[in-house]
């Protein structure tokens, strides 16, 4: 924390004590005039001083200007150094009054300069807003203010917090404020019993920040009883954290597993069910990702409102694109190679090179930007574990694709015919099933599913011509580990490899962890040459 923020907080403390005594007298300077001080070329220190000056006004109206500053929307006019909130509108900026938010005309972009911000400025704004909004109307704002003050843990804030706690009506916010107060108390030189009490509050909160504060308290306090209590609390929190760490590992493992599952599930069809070693599988995934890119580009230029739906729109298209490419591959190449699995490997590897280079030629070698829709951004907390929305959706999506595939295989006529053909080709053929058609459809289905996986993977990985190569080896490992020809094997294989990887990673590191997993797979295949869920039967070898 920089000295200037301390100074600012001291000012705020003064301010709040003033508010509590006589709130009406708070305004001593004109906020509108202070805001204008942002204009002109300013050093960061000068900008920061203006922020504290604004915070010192205690006027909730300055929050608008401060927020705009934090978001980088505060500009000054080069002609007269007047300060506005600017919104981009083509080559112009629409100007708003920084205090009232009223429209104030517009200016060409070249005539406006941004008030420069950096992280420390943003932090200063956040802190200022935190103090200003401790008693805001909106409970969410009060909540955020309490959180900010909690991590600041500034003894000077105890009194303003006391005042806020007294006035607080929302139970959740109240707890946060009490915790913020407790943090501040521990950092202060208040008497020991009060600190012990505060330590208890933090122990109840039980997260990593509290742990740090409690540790510091336990090391410094003279009070034996308080120390014992604190140490007990620390142990409890550590246990709690350890528990959540394991939970988190499992979650990460599931999430990695679902990515592996998505990458491998199409292969489980083309390789597992049909026995085609499709080295171009990764490229099918890549095509799906590029389809997403194209869809998003189209939406950005023609229908920006649909952006939230872009992934849903991309799904069927990706299925079609990859499925069609798969169909063409099957008809033009693979059908001549049935029964020669190792040669399909070579031919499809050739196709993968061609597809990569084709994409490189069309879209360029560099990464393409695929955006996350809002519903796939951000995270929420479960206990001490942070769950990101995109991972959650990917897990759900992977399982949904898996379920859909099971249904297709088990409940539809196509699935029935596919199973018939894989089990006994000549018999199926004799029964009037058009085996070449079923082959083509099966391959197209596997490829299409790879395309769908590409839509999901575009959310977590690079969209570049090399995308597919990163997944191809892992996909084969998953299918082989799970047992060829068994969808459930692929599911269990993907999830167990994911979890194993994530449990190894904290101990062995990412590199060694991955090596260990590979070696374990090699050893496992020695033990069970046909994978986890081997197909049994007399005809396996035939």
């Amino acid at each position, binding site marked *: 924390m920089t000295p200037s923020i301390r100074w600012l907080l001291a000012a705020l403390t003064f301010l709040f004590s003033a508010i509590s005594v006589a709130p009406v007298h708070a305004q001593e300077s004109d906020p509108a005039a202070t805001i204008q001080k942002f204009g002109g070329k300013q050093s960061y220190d000068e900008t920061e001083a203006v922020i504290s000056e604004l915070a010192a006004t205690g006027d909730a109206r300055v929050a608008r200007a401060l927020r705009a500053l934090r978001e980088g929307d505060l500009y000054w006019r080069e002609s007269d150094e007047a300060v506005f909130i600017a919104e981009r509108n083509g080559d112009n900026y629409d100007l708003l009054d920084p205090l009232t938010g009223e429209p104030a005309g517009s200016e060409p972009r070249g005539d406006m300069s941004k008030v420069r911000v950096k992280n420390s400025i943003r932090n200063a704004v956040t802190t200022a807003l935190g103090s200003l909004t401790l008693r805001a109307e909106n409970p969410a704002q009060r909540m955020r203010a309490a959180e900010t003050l909690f991590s600041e843990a500034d003894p000077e804030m105890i009194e303003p917090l006391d005042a806020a706690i007294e006035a607080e009506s929302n139970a959740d916010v109240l707890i946060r404020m009490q915790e913020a107060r407790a943090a501040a108390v521990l950092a202060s030189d208040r008497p020991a019993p009060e600190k012990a009490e505060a330590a208890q509050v933090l122990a109840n909160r039980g997260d990593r920040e509290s742990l740090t504060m409690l540790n510091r308290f336990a090391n410094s306090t003279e009070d034996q009883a308080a120390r014992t209590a604190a140490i007990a609390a620390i142990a409890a929190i550590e246990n709690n954290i350890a528990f959540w760490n394991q939970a988190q590992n499992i979650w990460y493992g599931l999430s990695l597993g679902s990515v592996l599952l998505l990458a491998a599930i199409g292969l489980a069809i083309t390789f597992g069910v049909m*026995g085609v*070693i499709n*080295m171009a599988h990764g490229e099918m995934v890549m095509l799906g990702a590029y389809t997403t890119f194209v869809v998003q580009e189209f939406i950005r230029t023609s229908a920006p409102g649909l952006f939230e739906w872009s992934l849903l729109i991309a799904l069927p298209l990706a299925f079609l694109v990859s499925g069609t490419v798969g169909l063409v591959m099957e008809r033009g*190449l693979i059908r*001549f*190679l049935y029964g*020669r*699995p*190792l*040669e*399909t*490997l*070579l*031919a499809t*590897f*050739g*196709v*993968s*090179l*061609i597809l*990569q*280079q*084709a994409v*490189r*030629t069309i879209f360029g070698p560099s990464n393409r930007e695929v955006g996350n829709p809002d519903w796939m951004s951000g995270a929420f907390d479960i206990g001490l574990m942070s769950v990101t929305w995109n991972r959650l959706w990917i897990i759900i999506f992977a399982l949904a694709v898996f379920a859909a595939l099971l249904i297709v295989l088990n409940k539809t006529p196509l699935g029935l015919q596919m199973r018939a053909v894989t089990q006994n080709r000549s018999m199926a053929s004799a029964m009037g099933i058009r085996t070449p058609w079923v082959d083509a459809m099966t391959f197209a289905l596997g490829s299409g599913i790879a395309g769908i996986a590409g839509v999901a993977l575009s959310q977590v990985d690079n969209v570049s011509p090399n995308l597919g*190569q990163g997944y191809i*080896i892992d996909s*084969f*490992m998953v299918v*082989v580990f799970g047992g*060829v020809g068994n969808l459930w094997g692929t599911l269990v294989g993907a999830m167990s490899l994911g979890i194993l990887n994530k449990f190894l990673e904290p101990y062995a590191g990412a*590199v*060694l962890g*991955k*090596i260990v997993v*590979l*070696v374990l*797979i*090699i*050893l496992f*295949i*020695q*033990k069970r*040459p*046909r994978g986890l869920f081997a197909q049994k039967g007399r005809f396996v*070898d035939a």
Partner: protein
Amino acid sequence: MLLARFLGPRVWILIAALLLAAVLVPMANLYLSPSHPLHVPSYMVPLLGKYVCYALLALALDLVWGYVGILSLGHGAFFALGGYAMGMYLMRQIGARGVYGNPELPDFMVFLNWKELPWYWYGFDQFWFAAIMVMLVPGLLGFVFGYFAFRSRVTGVYLSIITQAMTYALLLAFFRNDMGFGGNNGLTDFKDILGFPIQADSTRAGLFAASCIALAIAVLIVGWITRSKLGKLMVAVRDAESRTRFIGWRPEYVKLFAFTVSAVMAGIAGALYVPQVGIINPGEFAPVNSIEIVVWAAVGGRGTLLGPVIGALLVNYGKTYFTAVAPEFWLFFLGGLFVFVTLLLPRGIIGTIDYGWETWRSRRRASREEKGESDDGEGQPLASPAE
């Protein structure tokens, strides 16, 4: 000599050509003036040497793939391990001539604050030790890996996938700087080999000659193995593994033998390759490289002695040519080649020629026999049992 009858004239032509190249190319490089039409420019010598090493590598793969039917997608690993063993020797030869003047430690260890040489670097200052390691390390890995894999009857696709996993794991391992092999930068900046400056044209010429001779010997050895009863057994294992089991052979040992010999050959190829290109880095372990080796053998014709050699030379010359004139089309070309070969030339160039020849001969013989003629001295006119 018995081998002469065994191998056939074509293989002898190949061996003769290699030995001739081992003499002529260096001479054309060193003694002919640059303006002479037959002069081989200096940059070309290591380039040709590289091709020859690749040919040796392709031949090694062919021994297991073409003759025993094990499609290894991890042969790059043996190649790279041989290369690393040689690279370690070359690194130790630098001695105090590194930038930090440390007589013991290679430069990359010095600036990463390593204090002493790791134990596995001991002995590599001796050429004989390195030479043994060049064969021993890949051979041992091949043996151990093969022993477990073949004993467990991991076959076909599964085997291909785990060989790929093996080279991928090694790739990741060698990328780690903590392994003490220079991480991504690998081993480079070599000064001399056996006391000869590595940059000198004469050394390069010598290395080229050595590569040609190594390849010629390898062709002889592979020829000898594949023409022996063991070679017949290998093909039998390739075509009908379980049948060989039911007549009492243990195909796992046949495979293990071929796999180990092949790994050693690949290691030697790597060892000859490294001083000629001047660098060994984990990129050689990349699974894609191993797949490319398979392609060389496939293009030339697997299950033949000549095929992989021709294939490696052709494809790599194509690579050099296309990356120079049309870099953006190189991958289209390579990819197209894969598709073309597997689809239309499944036996490869040499294999197709051979097959055509064999079929023709076989037909001729069959038709003669039907007519009751004999096609050579050995056969006697016989009536078929049905008659």
